[in-house]
């Protein structure tokens, strides 16, 4: 543990974007930039601070950890803390950079949007939440950030919630990750019970000293991994990520490329001491990662929507990162996270640029765009090469390290899966590139323009390049995709010096490297060849459909979503929910409420009866008595003098009798 230096101020890094959130919410609408300027400056400042921390972490190794007590109860206290090492600092840089770039990009992309200010507020809240997660020194705080990014993801995916489809996607994302989060929460509690602490450093120390039983370590690791399955879209909880493309494209670039989905990977890397201590956990992770890699890559090959291709690609690449974790190459996995952030964000923003120009997501309606959108084309090409794993671009170095580590560790499943996936990745990116940018534009306006698509300003319909606010981020990310991997080349791997992860292994295999290059280039060429002559017009048939039933199954996402719908969603929706609503809520709870109401009504009636009969009766009784008495007394005033005289004599008689009886007059 070291102290001092710029890293002491690291707590500002999450605080700045969250402050931006509040400022934008309260006064954003009144500002000239509608809140965007606040977001960009604050996030930018956080990023700069992150860079400084990163530099300090590289220069002076070691961890800066600070915390303050939040709540104290019993013998425990909950901490809010920071743990700034190379890994965390790297994430500051990645998250900050992608967030700033996509906010600049959104100036153009989201211009005139119905909820422009709220968009910036939510993006900043998300950025701050992710940074809270990253900087946390204890798993409870990490859980807080974890949940918050989930909420922000929901808000941002459902940004255009007027369309039912979009709000459904947001709900699907949230609920699916919830399943994973349940495991995560139980894992946090379990580890706390086992280790008597939430602190990451202390947990890892305890595990290293075998102070916690292996069973508990395994179960804890697997439970935490459940959260990663949800957040990082591993099989079987990957289903939300493709649907999340319903959100604005910059959101996809930020959340579903570089940051939120990497939270699972980051978490595993952060507490790697726990995972690496359990062979069973690593094996499970490896299996799931391999399935994820392959499944997603296959599905990416049959998509028509350009964003969906990228979404499945992300799932597949996340599988790579997790696979790296499972074979012990944690640093390689993090390295891939680093490079993937750059080129995937680039690809998403590039696709956004394309969509912005042609107003459709369907690649079969594009084509030939390299002529009309050169900057977008070149940057997208760079990103694709990086993703496919062609040297010297970034993705090659990181992916190769993973596959090499898989080979070295003897994990054949991961190795084979990695190789096949690498091929498929290259193939579908070739397909994507070809359909979008090569050939001729398939929606050329016919003179007279019956089926030309509309442009807002009524202009004619050839697509054009996007404005600089959108192209500059693309250029920056493309540059990073070129050089970003160079920090981790086998010749001089400084990356592993930056990121120190206990329990990670390193190594490189030349043969694997060569094989990767061949596979990558080969895949790209095959993709190009299959699609370059794709006919244009409507009703384009994908050549892959020749694969028949396998193709159809792939188009239907292997019926996984249908399965979930039938087996889980519908029974809950129509069965459990209906039961809870109809029986529990309406009859039991409402019945109880109605009973109380009826009881009160009866009580009220009884009180009224008492009042009317009893109280009023008494009062009326008095009146009645007075009435009758007065009626009698009134008779005395008969006006009859002889009556009065009679009374007089009676009185005299009585007086006389009394006097007489008392003893003589």
């Amino acid at each position: 543990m070291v102290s001092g230096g710029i890293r002491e101020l690291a707590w500002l890094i999450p605080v700045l974007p969250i402050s931006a959130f509040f400022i934008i919410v309260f006064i954003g609408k009144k500002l000239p930039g509608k809140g965007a300027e606040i977001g960009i400056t604050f996030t930018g400042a956080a990023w700069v601070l992150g860079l400084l921390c990163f530099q300090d972490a590289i220069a002076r190794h070691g961890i800066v950890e600070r915390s303050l007590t939040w709540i104290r109860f019993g013998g425990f206290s909950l901490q809010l803390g920071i743990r700034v090492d190379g890994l965390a600092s790297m994430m500051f840089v990645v998250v900050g950079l992608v967030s700033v770039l996509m906010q600049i990009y959104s100036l153009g992309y989201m211009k005139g949007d119905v909820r422009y200010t709220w968009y910036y507020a939510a993006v900043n809240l998300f950025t701050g939440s992710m940074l809270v997660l990253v900087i946390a020194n204890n798993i409870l705080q990490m859980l807080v950030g974890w949940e918050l990014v989930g909420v922000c993801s929901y808000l941002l995916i459902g940004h255009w919630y007027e369309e039912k489809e979009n709000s459904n996607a947001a709900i699907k994302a949230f609920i699916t990750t919830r399943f994973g989060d349940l495991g995560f929460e139980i894992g946090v509690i379990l580890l706390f019970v086992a280790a008597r602490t939430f602190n990451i450093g202390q947990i890892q120390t305890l595990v290293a000293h075998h102070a916690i039983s292996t069973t508990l370590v395994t179960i804890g690791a697997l439970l935490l991994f459940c959260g990663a399955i949800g957040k990082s879209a591993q099989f079987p909880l990957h289903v939300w990520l493709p649907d999340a493309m319903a959100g604005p494209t910059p959101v996809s670039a930020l959340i579903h490329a570089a940051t939120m989905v990497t939270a699972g990977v980051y978490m595993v890397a952060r507490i790697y001491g726990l995972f690496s201590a359990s062979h069973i956990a690593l094996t499970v992770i490896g299996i799931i990662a391999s399935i994820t890699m392959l499944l997603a890559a296959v599905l990416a090959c049959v998509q028509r929507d350009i964003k969906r291709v990228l979404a499945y690609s992300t799932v597949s690449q996340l599988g790579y990162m997790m696979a790296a974790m499972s074979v012990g190459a944690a640093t390689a996995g993090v390295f891939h996270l680093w490079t993937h952030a750059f080129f995937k964000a680039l690809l998403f923003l590039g696709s956004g640029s394309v969509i912005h120009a042609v107003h459709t997501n369907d690649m079969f309606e594009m084509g030939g765009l390299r002529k009309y959108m050169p900057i977008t084309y070149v940057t997208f090409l760079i990103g694709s090469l990086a993703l496919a794993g062609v040297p010297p671009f970034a993705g090659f170095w990181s992916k190769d390290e993973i596959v090499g580590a898989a080979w070295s560790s003897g994990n054949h499943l991961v190795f084979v899966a990695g190789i096949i996936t690498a091929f498929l990745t290259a193939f579908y990116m070739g397909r994507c590139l070809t359909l979008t940018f090569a050939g001729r534009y398939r929606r050329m306006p016919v003179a007279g323009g019956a089926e030309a698509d509309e442009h807002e300003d009524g202009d004619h319909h050839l697509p054009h390049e996007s404005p600089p606010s959108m192209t500059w981020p693309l250029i920056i990310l493309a540059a990073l995709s070129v050089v970003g991997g160079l920090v981790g080349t086998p010749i001089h791997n400084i990356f592993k010096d930056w990121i120190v992860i206990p329990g990670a292994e390193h190594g490189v295999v030349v043969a694997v490297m060569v094989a990767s290059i061949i596979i990558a280039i080969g895949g790209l060429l095959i993709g190009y060849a299959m699609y370059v002559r794709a006919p244009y017009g409507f009703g384009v048939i994908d050549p892959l459909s020749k694969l028949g039933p396998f193709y159809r199954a792939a188009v239907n996402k292997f019926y996984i979503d249908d399965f979930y719908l039938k087996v889980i969603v519908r029974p809950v929706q129509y069965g459990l929910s209906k039961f809870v609503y109809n029986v529990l809520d309406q009859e039991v709870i409402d019945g109880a409420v109605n009973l109380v109401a009826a009881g009160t009504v009866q009580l009220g009636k009884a009180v009224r009866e008492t009042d009317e009969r009893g109280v009023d009766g008494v009062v009326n009784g008095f009146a009645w008595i007075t009435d009758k008495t007065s009626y009698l007394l009134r008779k005395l005033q008969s006006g009859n003098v002889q009556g009065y005289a009679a009374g007089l004599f009676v009185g005299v008689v009585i007086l006389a009798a009394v006097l007489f009886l008392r003893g003589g007059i």
Partner: protein
Amino acid sequence: MALPTIAFWMLAAFTAVTAIFTVTTRNVVHSALGLSAALIGAAALFILFGAQFVGLAQILIYVGAVVILFMFGIMLTGTSIRPVVDNDQRVMAALVAVAVFIVLAAGILTSFGGRKVRFDVAFPTVAIGHALFTTWVLPFEAVSILLLAALVGAIVLARRD
């Protein structure tokens, strides 16, 4: 039994009967006549008890003038009230009268139970006249003024205007 005693009992019976008759008869004129008979009986009793002047004055004034006055009154105001002469409270009135009698009788009997009266003193008119104009002259004069006032008042009340 001595003569006065017999006379007394006869006169007492007569007076009592006529008194009862006076208050129970339905005819007003009969009632007035009954009154005069009772008054004559009383006058006789006065004389029996030695109050000669008072007895004679009683006959002169009461029977002679007052009863005549009653007659005039009866004549000028209708002789009968058909059909009922007694009012609704006659039962209670009877009871009250009886109660009064009982109380009086009780008082009389306890106070004067064993005493006897003798008819031995007569009060001469001279002595009464003498007393009237010496010791009792003031009440005498007052009564005369009273009579004057009554006279004037009666005229005022009864005149037609």
